[in-house]
């Protein structure tokens, strides 16, 4: 379980209220207000600590005035005139949250009248959509052919060693997410990497460390 701020607030909140439904509802609302939705790992923790069945918790959750539901409904409403709107909705969620939270996907499925499995079918098919929350910073290494030939594998190894994670993963402290991208179309200045959305090109071995400095990526000398 990731060390998230969500857990520290639980004991104080829940010890006084125990299994009272109204109270639980209120604490759920608090969590909802804090996160914008009720993260699954917190829901699981609540159900474990309070020995409430997850299904019952879910039922309670549906009573909470949910931002997630509102968001999902707003998205569905926004694209309702478009045929094949699912991918458009997912794009918007991905851009907003950095991933597609399960809670949101469930609400979208409900609002759109599409089975959750269908939505996951689409999410998992496309590389662009992620199911896990991203790190605070992201480092994507381009593995297009031009970059590959000019030594992108070296950059990838270097990044893996420095961050101590495999590609497609986030560091345990959720600071950095390391990814490999297909081609960002900057073949003229290969090898290139994308650091927090900004492209840096014409790199050499040893250049990756510069982006991973604790203060965040430093400005690249061109």
């Amino acid at each position, binding site marked *: 379980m990731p060390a998230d701020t969500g857990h520290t607030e639980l004991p104080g909140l829940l010890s006084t209220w125990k299994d009272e439904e109204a109270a639980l509802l209120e604490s759920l609302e608090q969590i909802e207000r804090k996160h914008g939705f009720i993260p699954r790992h917190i829901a699981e923790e609540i159900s474990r600590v309070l020995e409430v069945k997850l299904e019952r918790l879910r039922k309670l959750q549906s009573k909470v005035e949910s931002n997630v539901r509102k968001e999902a409904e707003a998205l569905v409403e926004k694209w309702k005139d478009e*045929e*094949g*709107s*699912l*991918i*458009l909705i*997912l*794009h918007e969620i991905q851009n907003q949250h950095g991933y597609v939270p399960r809670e949101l996907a469930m609400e979208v499925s409900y609002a759109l009248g599409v089975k959750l499995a269908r939505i996951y*079918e*689409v999410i998992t*098919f*496309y*590389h*662009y*959509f992620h199911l896990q929350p991203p790190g605070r910073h992201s480092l994507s290494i381009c*593995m*297009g*052919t*031009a970059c*590959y*030939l*000019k030594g992108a594998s070296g950059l990838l190894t270097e990044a893996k060693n420095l961050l101590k994670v495999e590609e497609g993963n986030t560091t345990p402290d959720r600071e950095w997410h390391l990814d490999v*991208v*297909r*081609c*960002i*179309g*900057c*073949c*003229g*200045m*290969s090898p*290139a990497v994308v650091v927090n959305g*900004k*492209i*840096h*090109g*014409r790199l050499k071995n040893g250049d990756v460390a510069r982006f991973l400095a604790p203060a965040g990526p430093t400005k690249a000398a*061109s």
Partner: protein
Amino acid sequence: MTKLLLADLAKHASRAPARGPNWVRISMDTGGIAAGADEVCALLEKEAGTLGFPLAVQRVGSLGLSFADPLIEVAREGMPTVVYGRVDEAAARRLLKDHLIGRRLLDDHILASRTRSVALDGPTTCLLVKDTSADSGDKTQFFQFSLLEELKHRGLQDKVQVVRALDMGVYDKGVAVQFLPSRVTYVNVLAADIARIVDTTLRGKKIIDNLLYRVPDKQVRIVLRNCGKFDPENFQDCLDHGVYQGLARVLGGLSPEAVIAEMKTSGLRGRGGAGFPTWLKWQLTREVARTPKYIICNGDEGDPGAYMDRSVLEGDPHSVLEGLIIAAHAIGASRGYFYIRAEYPLAVSRVERAIADAHAAGLLGDNILGSGFSFDAKVRLGAGAFVCGEETALIASIEGKRGSPSPRPPYPSERGLFGQPTAINNVETLAAVPEILLRGGAWYAQYGTEESRGTKVFAVTGKVRQPQLVEVPLGITLRDIVFELCGGVFGGKTIKAVQTGGPSGGMIPEHLLDTRVSYESLQELGSIMGSGGMIVMDQDDSMVEVSRFYLRFCVDESCGKCAPCRIGGYQMLQILNRLSRGRAEPGDLERVRAISKAMQKASLCGLGQTAPNPVLSALRYFEPEFKAYVEGGVTYARKMSQARPAESAPAAAPATA
């Protein structure tokens, strides 16, 4: 903005763009921005007011000279217009001070013009000098010094400036000298020629014939005609530069049949890779009676190592939109989609902007230009799936589903998007359409070969000296593209192969580089034209590794719907993996060939059918490299792949490494 009518566009046709004599154009495409163009642009915009004369700072698309990003084109009254490359902030400050105020060109940043002249017109004000050989060293400095000394000796040093260039556009021709503003270029200049140059050419205004470089520019810019020329986000600027004139001609009186006939004359074939005649695609879609019909612009440029669609969408979105509207008119479509990769956010925003501007001006929507034709276009984002470049998968993706291809027939021209007749054209194809209709199909057909007409944009990358976009008439040789236009191999190494067509294409070895590029000729060599990625590999690149790289790409991208692609690709990759670890089994190469054949024959869509191409072509031309892995193990194979000359002919003597 009020809605335009046909008559309004006609006015734009003759209007010269209003711009002062002093301007700078900054290439603000993704590549340029990655290299720091936005900082430079901000600096120039800030300082433009302090110069004491009006300076127009324009953000334009890329000129294609990617090796020198960020690019800035500078015009100063009374001085030759030059393109600067690799302009960082420090260089930009010097540019302001020295060039714009001090009227002196900057050393080491100028890219000499590719359009060279053979006649001097007017007095020379500047000499560009550069040693064009691969191991460029001190010679440039020496020549600059010597020329300057000679000029001083003749008392010309105040009239003519001598500037070191960054790139001359000619390669391996010794020291090159270009005269500005006439753009006469001398090559293979020796120290002994310096006095002659100053005496004959600068003072006598006569050209020295045996130094003159007469080879004209091999590039013909049709698709890239507007890239880097004006601000794609400034609609007025686009109109003034003649965008939408092709559409005006079509809506002003050309029937859809006449448009299709014109396209037939032009001989334009799909630039996405397969080369299906564009007119025929339109004709087939037109013939189907059902409505509504759709037109799709395929901007899902998934081929790694290619970026011409991105450059065109970023640099000239209005021309692509114009092509889309013309295509819609020809096939009778009422709705159009741009399907663009989400990895190209700038291209997406520029196209969206173009659509909004066109809407406001009445170039989209009901009753376009008062002609009675109605059409609307939208942008749909790809989401990172290579297979979505395939027509049927792309359609599924726009419909909001998984991008799985479906068997053809029925072809999209019959049952496409939402079950309706649909035509899908590549970005580059659509960008060429307006110019064809404006200047006529016969004009376009003068370029290229009998079967493959017109021009094609190639993104030449990899181990090449000057990676860039080039647009060349088809029929040019690969050697001309790689060596003459892009300067040959990076670091003075030996070329081993050129890969065309990305993961669906194949390797073309050095001894076949004199092949004339066309759809058919590349296919005969076991490769394809593809979308236009051209990747240069040198002697250090192991063909086994490269083919493994491509195969891994296709295995990752296989949608998994049909077995030959899903299982065949995986098994082939397993074999190559163990081969590259030196654990190949006897008969593995035959096994690879057998699986390849099965995949080519039985796969559902283009991805599976072409996935074995890189491996097969590598096996065809570089079998000894694979055999070295099988027979001698990894260390031996690595040594062999580097020592061996590019030819696979057994007669080639193995050099001692």
